Every structure is written in structure tokens, then in C-alpha cells.
């Protein structure tokens, strides 16, 4: 009881608390804000440490993009989000500000490319359908490592070739773009092996350079003697075997495409093409790709006076049915002085088409050869290649009967003498025939004929003729009488005489037979004659030796 403090009367009998010793330290409740601070601090640290680069991308339009919602994805993995979208000062672009994750900083470089993935429907492909529901997103192609930048120019179209696609680029030179476009497929044996990545006009404006990208492992099939051709559309071929349709695929029909292959006739596939080998030529179609390319062209002029309807630039020039060149151009000339028309046709002959045997033929010398050929009777002639299409071609042939001429020369070009077309020849012959026919005195012939006929009529209707006919019938009747007489009287006598003659002949035949008595007797007589001949020869011999015996008689042995 503390005397200093007088206890309150009410509280005097109140119980006292139980005292427990124990020092109190700092209240444990401070752990709560500490924990909160730690958690908050950790969150802040995480936010700061995970904060990646903040980039800006400029696009032409912000179609489908939403601030705070649109994602930036790399291979469909979220790597960031669009924070805000603003217009550029000149209102030409939209500037998209995006926050990327930390890991993105590693692969961002000046070569990175961004594009908006939206649902795109183009001929040949439909892409980005998933974005119809999920909304557009921005895709990134990291690109090759390079300088770090934070502002990018967005692409309006998805890039054709992305960084992770392995392959090679090839340059193709074409005369015209055709239906090819960026993204057009490239086919090798009808397998899609790549795409057209870009195209540009050549600096000198003479053609188009296509950059095609061919995915691995297909670049190995591009050889040094590979030929590329434009496989767009349908290649319809009408030849002796019927109709042939060559097309790479339905897609290439719609959006065009490039195909390449090693053309068999140019030899076996060569070594794989070096990427630095320069560029390939892009042929307008497969047929052109299958044709040889010729470096030497010799130009000649032909003059035709008749119609060249059906002839077109590119029409073949053939020698004995083998193409040796083509028609380059033709025009119509009018000679004011002579008042005549003339159609000069310029042809190009590729001497490399002709294989020289037994020695090296210098294509440059072919003009000299041509001179010789013309002297031997080489002539050019327009001929109809197809009756259906009416296409004409130029044929070079030897006409040895033609009067010899020399190869002419007009300005820059030598000119080959021409012959009128076959139809023309036929025409002229027909004309000549008709002219001759016209010259015939058909009226005269007709009148003569009529006179002759009339004369004949007169003769037939003449009374003399009637008399002649009558006397002729009388004569005939007499002849008939005579013959009857012959039959009845003369004929039996003749038969009797004939029978007698036959009997005589039979008798003579009997006497002439080998066993006939006449024959035997004749034989005996002949033998007798032979014996007397021998006796005579003996006598003659004897007389030769002893001619005196005729006088002195036969001498006995002396």
C-alpha cells in the first residue's frame, strides 16, 4: 500500500492485478509494414528489373491496333504490349509506343522488322485468320544483329523472308515483270521451294531484277546450267500430239510463279550454282527456257512485194524445216519515184543454231557463206505455217533453177533475194492459164463446129446417100446369094478334095515311116552305095600308088 496515494474509497477493495515481469521490446506489429515494404519493394524491383526496352514503331495506319491491348509477339510468344498510339506531327504516320520484355532487348537491332498481323486474304493465301477474334497483333522478325535502336519503321506487309528461314537468294533478270509479284511462289518440279522476295527496276531501266529466296535444302538444285522461267498462267501447247497444258499449280495460275529446272538437252546438271555467280536469266515461259540462247545474230533484209499477212515478229526462219532464225521486224515502204510498194522484212539468223561438222565454223563468217549460198540459188520465200492460224514463216531454200544473183547490201544489212510465195506462183500459173483460155477463139470454134454438124446433116439427109445405101443393100444381097451358092455347091467339092488330099498325105506318111518297106529298101540301097564307095576309094588308092597298073595290069610281087 502506497501511503503517498490515498486510495479511493470505491477502489479500496478492488482486486490487484497480477504482476509478471518481462521487458517489452518493439511491437511485433511492425513486422506487418515491414513485410508490406518487402513485398512492395520486391514488386517494384521486379517491375524495374523486368522492364524491357520501350520502343516506337511507325506505321501508316493504326488499323486494328489498340493502346494497352495489342500484343507484340515473336513466333506467337508475347514479348510486349502497345502502350500508346499517337499521330506523328505531320499526320503521315502513326507512332506506336510499345513496352517490350527485358529479353527482347537482346535481339532488337536496326535490322528488326515489325508488321501488323491482320487477317489478309490474297490470291493464293489466307493468313492471320486467328486475329479475327483475338484482334491484330504486331509481329517481329528480329533480323541480323546490328546497331541498337529504339525506333523502327513498321512494314505494311509481312516480310517474305524472315530471319529464321534458312536459304539463299538468287537474282533473276527478266525483260518484264509479268504477273510476278512479291510473294509469288518458286517451284522446282512443282514443289514450292521458295518465293519472290523483291523486285526492282534495273538501274539502266532495261529490265527487272527479281530477288528470289529459295529455302534450304533446295538451293542445291540450282545448278550453273539451271534455267528459270516464268510459270505464270497456263501454258497451252497445240502441236501434232494434240493439246498440252503445262501449269505448275492452280495458285501459280492466279498469282504467277517462277519455276526452274535443268533443261535436259543442255546436258547433265552442272555443279551447284555459286551464290556470288551473278544472276540468272528469267525466261518468259518454259518454251523459251528450253530454247538455246544465241549470242551471234546476223541480220538480213528480205523484200517482199506481196502481202505478208500472217507474218509476225518472232516468226521462225527455217531452212529445210529447221529453225535457223526469226523475223525481227517488217514495215511497208513506198517508193515515191517509182510509185511502188515494198515490204522489207528484217530477219535475224543465229548461225550457232547450225552445227558445223568437220572443222570449227566461225559464226562471224556466215555472211560470206551466205553470199556463196545465194550464188548457188538460195532464196527466201514466205510460206504458210498453218492453214488454221494463217501464220506465215520465212523459208530459205535452194532453187538451183533460179537465175544466179548476188547477195545485195542495203545500208547496214545484206539482203537475200526472195521468191514469190507458193500460193503466188500457183496464182500466176492459174492466171496464165486463164489468159490462154481467154485467147482461145471459142466463138470461131463453135461456129465451125456448127457448120460441120450442119454439113454432116446435109450429107446424111442427101438423096445420093440414100441411093448409095440402096445400092449397097443390093450389093450385100448379091454377096449373100453368092455365099449361099458357095455353101451349097462349092463347099462339098472342096471337102471331097480335102479328104483325098488327106488320104494321100496319110499314104505318104505311111511310106515315110521307119519300118516301112520303102525305108528298108532305101537303107539297103544306101549301104550298097557305101560299099561301092569304099571299093572305089581302094581302087583310087591303088591307082595312086601304082598308076601304071591301068596299063600294065596288076603286078604281083616283084
Amino acid at each position, binding site marked *: 500500500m502506497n501511503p503517498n496515494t490515498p486510495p479511493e474509497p470505491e477502489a479500496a477493495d*478492488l482486486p*490487484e492485478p497480477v504482476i509478471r515481469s518481462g521487458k517489452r521490446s518493439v511491437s511485433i*506489429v511492425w513486422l506487418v509494414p515491414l513485410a*508490406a515494404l518487402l513485398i512492395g519493394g520486391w514488386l517494384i524491383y521486379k517491375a524495374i528489373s523486368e522492364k524491357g526496352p520501350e520502343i516506337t514503331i511507325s506505321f501508316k495506319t493504326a488499323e486494328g491496333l489498340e493502346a494497352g491491348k495489342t500484343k507484340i509477339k515473336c513466333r506467337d510468344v508475347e514479348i510486349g504490349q502497345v502502350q500508346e498510339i499517337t499521330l506523328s506531327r505531320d499526320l503521315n504516320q502513326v507512332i506506336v509506343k510499345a513496352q517490350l520484355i527485358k529479353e527482347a532487348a537482346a535481339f532488337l537491332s536496326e535490322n528488326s522488322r515489325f508488321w501488323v498481323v491482320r487477317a489478309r486474304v490474297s490470291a493464293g493465301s489466307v493468313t492471320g485468320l486467328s486475329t479475327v*477474334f483475338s484482334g491484330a497483333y504486331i509481329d517481329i522478325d528480329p533480323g541480323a544483329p546490328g546497331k541498337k535502336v529504339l525506333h523502327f519503321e513498321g512494314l505494311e506487309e509481312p516480310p517474305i523472308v524472315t530471319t529464321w528461314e534458312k536459304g539463299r537468294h538468287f537474282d533473276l533478270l527478266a525483260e518484264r515483270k509479268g504477273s510476278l509479284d512479291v510473294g509469288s511462289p518458286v517451284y522446282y518440279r512443282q514443289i514450292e521451294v521458295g518465293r519472290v522476295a523483291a523486285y526492282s527496276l534495273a538501274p539502266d531501266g532495261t529490265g527487272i531484277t527479281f530477288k528470289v529466296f529459295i529455302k534450304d535444302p533446295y538451293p542445291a538444285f540450282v545448278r550453273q546450267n539451271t534455267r528459270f522461267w516464268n510459270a505464270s498462267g497456263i501454258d497451252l501447247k497445240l502441236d501434232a500430239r494434240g493439246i498440252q497444258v503445262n501449269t505448275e499449280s492452280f495458285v501459280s495460275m492466279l498469282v504467277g510463279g517462277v519455276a526452274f529446272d535443268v533443261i535436259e538437252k543442255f546436258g547433265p546438271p552442272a555443279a551447284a550454282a555459286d551464290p556470288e555467280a551473278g544472276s540468272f536469266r528469267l525466261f518468259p515461259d518454259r518454251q523459251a527456257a528450253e530454247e538455246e540462247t544465241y549470242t551471234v545474230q546476223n541480220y538480213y533484209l528480205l523484200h517482199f512485194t506481196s502481202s505478208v499477212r500472217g507474218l509476225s515478229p518472232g516468226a521462225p526462219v527455217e531452212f529445210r524445216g529447221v529453225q535457223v532464225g526469226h523475223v525481227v521486224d517488217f514495215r511497208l515502204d513506198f517508193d515515191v519515184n517509182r510509185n511502188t510498194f515494198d515490204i522489207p522484212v528484217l530477219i535475224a539468223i543465229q548461225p550457232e543454231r547450225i552445227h558445223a561438222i568437220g572443222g570449227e565454223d566461225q559464226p562471224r563468217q556466215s555472211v560470206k557463206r551466205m553470199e556463196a549460198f545465194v550464188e548457188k540459188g538460195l532464196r527466201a520465200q514466205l510460206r504458210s505455217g498453218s492453214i488454221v492460224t494463217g501464220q506465215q514463216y520465212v523459208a530459205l531454200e535452194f532453187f538451183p533453177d533460179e537465175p544466179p544473183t548476188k547477195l545485195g547490201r542495203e545500208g547496214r544489212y545484206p539482203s537475200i533475194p526472195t521468191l514469190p510465195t507458193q500460193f503466188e506462183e500457183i496464182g500466176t500459173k492459174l492466171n496464165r492459164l486463164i489468159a490462154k483460155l481467154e485467147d482461145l477463139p471459142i466463138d470461131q470454134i463453135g461456129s465451125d463446129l456448127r457448120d460441120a454438124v450442119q454439113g454432116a446433116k446435109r450429107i446424111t439427109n442427101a438423096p445420093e446417100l440414100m441411093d448409095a445405101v440402096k445400092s449397097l443393100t443390093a450389093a450385100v444381097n448379091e454377096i449373100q446369094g453368092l455365099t449361099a451358092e458357095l455353101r451349097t455347091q462349092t463347099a462339098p467339092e472342096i471337102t471331097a478334095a480335102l479328104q483325098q488330099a488327106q488320104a494321100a498325105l496319110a499314104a505318104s506318111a505311111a511310106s515315110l515311116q521307119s519300118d516301112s518297106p520303102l525305108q528298108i529298101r532305101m537303107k539297103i540301097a544306101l549301104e550298097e552305095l557305101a560299099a561301092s564307095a569304099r571299093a572305089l576309094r581302094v581302087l583310087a588308092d591303088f591307082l595312086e600308088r601304082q598308076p601304071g597298073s591301068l596299063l600294065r595290069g596288076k603286078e604281083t610281087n616283084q
Partner: protein
Amino acid sequence: MRPVARTAKSQSLVSCGVCHLLVRKLPGSPEPPGRCPRCGAALHSRKPDSIARTWALVIAALFFYVPANVLPITKVTSLGVVQLDTILSGVIYFIHSGMWPIALVIFIASIFVPLLKLLILMLLLVSVQRGIRWRPKDRTRLYRITEAIGRWSMVDIFVVTILVALVHLGALANIEAQAGAAFFAAVVVITIFAAMSFDPRLIWDVKESDDEPQHTP
């Protein structure tokens, strides 16, 4: 002689917080005065370390208040479109959708009230620490409001939990709670504790010291 407001503390009496036994505080006895002889509960004439504890909890709540509002509270996936929403963006969304009442409810319950509570508590703490005598009655009323209103902030959390439980339509629509919800719940809960640990009698202790006659021993 005007009636003097007498408090238990001035009479060296302590009421047990559990069994309401009135205990006499011994002079020279340490603070806190010890344990209730009847039920054994710790005795204290005022909530122990009230100001410190309240400050601690208020500061903790403030720490959590930032991520609760910055981090997304829900993730709504509908037809493949993923939408992350913070509390504020949810309010803005409802405003844009023209659902003003809902926006108002969410705004009041989730943004206005927790912030108001924290501000009131800080005001009370500062006023008590500074010994400010300004309108103790009003300040007490503010404290009561704080206590009464605090739990309603949990509405937002309930809404989120109910939505998460209800909307499970796979790819069509799906709602998931995000980290922000946890921090927001923490803010609400910690604020409730902070209000509980504040002793409103402290508001009046200053007044008492004024009223107390200076009696010389």
C-alpha cells in the same frame, strides 16, 4: 463544483477487456499493469501501443495500396481476347459501357473507401500524437465511420471470387483473379486491423488532461 469527467484511468483503475473486472492499478506498477486476477487476460487502461500499431498497419496498407491499384485484378478471356483489368480500368470500362451504378459502387467500395479510411486513420493518429483538441466528438464519429465502413471494401473481392467461380466457359469466357486482388484484399484486411488497433479514447485523453484539476499533493 461542476461535475468532473472522471475516467477509470484517472482513478488508477483498469477495466479488464475480457471479463470487465475493475482492477485497481497499484502505484508504481509497470505499464501495462499486469493480468486480470479473475480471467488472466492482460490488463491495459488503453490499447497497448495503439498509435504505433495503427501507424504500422496504416503504413503497411499504404504499401499494399499501390500494387493493389496498379496490378491487374482480373483476367477476362472471352473468345480468345485476353483482357487484364485493374480496379480503375474496370471502373472506366463500366462507365464506358454506360453502367453508371455499378461503376459507382465499385469506385466507392474499392477506391474511395479504402483511401478514405487510411486518410481518416492518419488524421486521427496525427491529431492524437499532436495533442490536438479540435472537435473530439467529430473525430470520434469519423472513427466510427471508419470502423463501420471498412468491411464493405471487401465487396470487390467477393465480386471477383464469385465471378471466378461462376464464369468457367473455357474458351468462350473465363475469368481469373490476378495478383492485384490479393493485394487489394490485404489492404482491406490490414485497414480493418488498423482501425481496430486504434483506441478512440486517446482522442479524449487530451481533453481529460485539460479538465483535470491540478491537485497538489
